């Protein structure tokens, strides 16, 4: 029991430094049109590239990030990074592409000024739909 609590604390501490140490990665899972096989959408999935433990799946660290409130910062980063990637892929490959990101209920809590921050990020990244005439 004590061992479990210690491991948990250790992970929380390491999680605190993970963003600054650029240890998070985003993988993109394509969403495919059944009839044509075309890919116009993708879902952004976060992984934690831990220096000692290797790749950690979100089920293992997102609950801790939610409990500690770190999810707000991590979620903002995922959104920002995905918007940047979307802008690049739209320019290079597919103007229609959409990327979806998971947003935790904790990010919707009262204190969060969601949209302003995220929306500004989104607009700065130039990934708004309006700009492409939709």
């Amino acid at each position: 029991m004590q061992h479990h609590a210690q491991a948990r604390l250790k992970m929380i501490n390491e999680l605190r430094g993970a963003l600054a140490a650029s240890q998070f990665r985003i993988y993109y899972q394509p969403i495919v049109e059944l009839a044509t096989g075309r890919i116009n959408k993708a879902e952004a999935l976060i992984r934690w590239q831990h220096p000692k433990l290797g790749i950690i799946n979100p089920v293992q660290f997102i609950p801790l990030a939610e409990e500690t409130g770190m999810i707000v910062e991590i979620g903002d980063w995922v959104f920002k990074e995905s918007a940047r990637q979307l802008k690049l892929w739209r320019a290079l490959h597919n103007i229609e592409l959409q990327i979806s990101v998971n947003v935790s209920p904790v990010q919707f809590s009262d204190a969060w000024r969601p949209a302003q921050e995220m929306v500004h990020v989104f607009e700065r990244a130039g990934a708004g739909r309006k700009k492409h005439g939709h």
Partner: protein
Amino acid sequence: MVIEITEGLLLDAESGIVGKLLEFRDAGIQASIDDFGTGYSALSYLKKFDIDFLKIDQSFVRNLAADFNDLALCEAIIVMAHKLELKVIAEGVETEEQRSLLAAAGMRLRSGVFVLQAVACR
């Protein structure tokens, strides 16, 4: 961009959530319901909130070929969603049989099996 949220969020929704979703909408960001059909759902949220996509949870898709009930649920979700002008995405489609059953039921989108990592090109 699209934000994926869960049914639970909409269920305890105070008016604040509506405002936050509208802010996203105004910025051209759409909303998708993740793991649809597995949470405590009250379908009334589908008319109360401006939702663009439903993602059918992979637990319904996994036994599609063997379990008639799962197929019936998928078909019903697809019909309902399309009537409400929502797009539907099937999660966890792994076999050709699942793909063709879903296509016959009117499904147009599925999430892929493989993931891609963006290559840094700075």
